[in-house]
């Protein structure tokens, strides 16, 4: 007997799933892809596949035949999503007042070794305004050239530059002529102002030409200046890109660019991280290379975490702490996390506030991670975990809090302090901001971040004297504290 799809993967369930699990997964996805209500592309087709999957898996004889076929096809590999939840406390005392509970949620992909990856469809959108002249543009061009070498024959690369207007330097095509591509990149000259929207628009058009479920589309935007008057258009373009599944990585060089705008573009386009701060031009090549490498390692895209909580539980705060620290917001109990790359797990910290509970075990939260696998068939993956906590009348012995949670929360707290300092400076509460910056410096020293601590002290001194931040120091602090969550990467 012949089958067309891996029905387990289609339903996002393990191969040993029982009937209840199959039913539940089917109902959930059927609601999502029902042609009458769904807005997803190819909903009707997906719905049809789901029907097929359900009929076959619920019939024991057909399921056996399918299992046999699946083994022959070699589809029996590890589930592509791992969801691990560590609570700060396994046992809690019964109190007559609210108490806090932290959950460390890790979403990772198992190492599957080098499989064949779908082709990359990448567009580089490069700022060539006058301020980029010299080392900056040189390094950007070098970085673009090294990407040309990094890509496989199937991959697509286009390059767009912008100043007051946008130009297409290299148009994407299969089996790109690498020499010609490098010459085209080398011919970029710096001149003119900075209008990000022009570049973004042309860049997205280039990506759109080859965009589809079978390719890994991505856009990298790099700039060193402020754009004027077209911020709204940029955000609209980013939102559309996010809906179409084209993430935008934004990078800023130096200290004069609009970090908020670049952050928002990255977030709206559902990029895996926020904007990247390049304080020295020497980092450009490395950051480009890492980005493209990570892109090739995409294991799951459109990753989302759903959080369902019961009575007596409130989600107080939600932060991503790795690959970098970002505050997350829930829409319909769901938060989108972009794509998951092999070797770089997404880690989320959930702070819950629990109202008084009766003794005994209580199910507090159900967490579910879902996404689609890259590739032409776009299989759905789904995994869920229940979090239970035991409430006891008297705690006999306090268990130590897992060190991962303490260390993540410590870094997160520093990040939050930095956010408060920024708000205080904006609101003119300079005294309080100075005090907080100094305390922050001590905390940074405690965890061994001497360089950042010095920046914090320097900025505190500047605040005392001038009442304002230096834009460079502010960027260093913002991006530095945000990057505290990054686990140092092991170089091969």
């Amino acid at each position, binding site marked *: 007997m012949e089958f067309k799809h891996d029905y387990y993967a289609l339903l996002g369930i393990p191969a040993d799933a029982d009937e209840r699990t199959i039913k539940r997964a089917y109902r959930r996805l059927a609601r999502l892809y029902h042609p009458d209500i769904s807005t997803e592309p190819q909903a009707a087709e997906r719905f049809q596949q789901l029907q097929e999957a359900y009929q076959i898996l619920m019939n024991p004889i057909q399921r056996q035949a399918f299992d046999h076929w699946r083994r022959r096809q070699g589809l029996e590999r590890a589930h592509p999503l791992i969801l691990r939840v560590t609570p700060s406390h396994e046992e809690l005392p019964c109190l007559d007042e609210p108490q*806090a509970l932290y959950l460390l949620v890790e979403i990772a992909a198992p190492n599957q070794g080098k499989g064949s990856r779908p082709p990359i469809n990448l567009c580089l959108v490069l700022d060539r305004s006058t301020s980029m002249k010299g080392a900056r543009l040189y390094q950007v061009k070098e970085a673009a050239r090294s990407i040309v070498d990094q890509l496989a024959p199937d991959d697509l690369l286009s390059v767009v530059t912008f100043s007051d207007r946008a130009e297409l330097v290299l148009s994407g095509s299969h089996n790109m002529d690498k020499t010609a591509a490098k010459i085209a990149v080398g011919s970029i000259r710096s001149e003119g102002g900075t209008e990000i929207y022009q570049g973004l628009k042309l860049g997205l058009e280039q990506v759109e030409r080859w965009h589809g479920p079978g390719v890994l589309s991505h856009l990298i935007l790099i700039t060193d200046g402020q754009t004027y008057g077209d911020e709204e258009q940029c955000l609209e373009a980013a939102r559309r890109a996010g809906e179409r599944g084209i993430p935008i990585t934004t990078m800023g060089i130096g200290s004069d660019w609009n970090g908020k705008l670049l952050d928002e573009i990255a977030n709206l386009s559902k990029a895996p991280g926020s904007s990247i701060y390049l304080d020295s031009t020497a980092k450009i090549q490395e950051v480009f290379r890492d980005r493209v490498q990570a892109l090739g390692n995409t294991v799951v895209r459109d990753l989302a975490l759903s959080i369902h909580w019961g009575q007596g539980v409130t989600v107080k705060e939600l932060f991503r702490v790795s690959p970098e620290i970002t505050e997350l917001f829930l829409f319909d109990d769901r938060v989108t996390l972009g794509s998951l790359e092999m070797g770089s797990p997404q880690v989320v910290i959930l702070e819950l506030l629990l109202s008084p509970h009766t003794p005994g075990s209580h199910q507090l939260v159900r967490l579910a991670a879902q996404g689609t696998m890259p590739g032409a068939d776009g299989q759905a993956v789904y995994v869920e975990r229940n979090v239970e906590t035991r409430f006891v009348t008297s705690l006999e012995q306090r268990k130590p809090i897992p060190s991962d949670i303490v260390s993540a929360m*410590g870094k997160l707290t520093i990040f939050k302090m930095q956010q408060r300092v920024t708000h205080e400076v904006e609101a003119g509460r300079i005294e309080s901001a100075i005090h907080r910056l100094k305390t922050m410096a001590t905390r940074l020293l*405690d965890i061994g971040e001497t360089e950042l601590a010095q920046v914090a002290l320097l900025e505190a001194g500047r605040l005392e004297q001038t009442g304002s931040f230096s834009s460079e120091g502010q960027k260093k602090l913002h991006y530095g504290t945000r990057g505290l969550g990054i686990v140092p990467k092991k170089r091969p």
Partner: protein
Amino acid sequence: MIKCPFCQSVYPENTLFCVECGSYLAPSDGQSTDPLQRSNVEYGQAGGGPFKILVLSIEGRGSIELPLSKEVVLGRLDPTRAIFPDVDLSDEEGVDKGISRRHARISQRGGQVFVEDLNSLNGTFLNATRLIPEMPYPLKDGDQVQLGKLTVTVHLK
């Protein structure tokens, strides 16, 4: 409700960190520092290891004996930052004498006792020579180790 011991902000029970000042709020989970016992100790003769006991003495203040079965961290106790050195020198004018929270470490490997500076601000000196941070130096009986401005005489038994 719990209160931050530093800035008096109020949080729900089990909160881990104070966002106002960044202090660690959770109880220290039974970690503690060995209390400094002042007693007169008779010093043994220097010789080859392995040594069982480390004796630290401060002139005019007395001595303390510690087992050398595990490493010994010298510094200043700071429960709000979850720093628990094995020997707390706060009472020896630790702050005024420039002792870091985690200042130096004494450990034994293969019968030889070493002292190592833990990147302290004001440095660790062995017989008046400043140590390169995070590099273990061999210690012998009767050596003088200076932490910031505080001199400690080391005896091995």
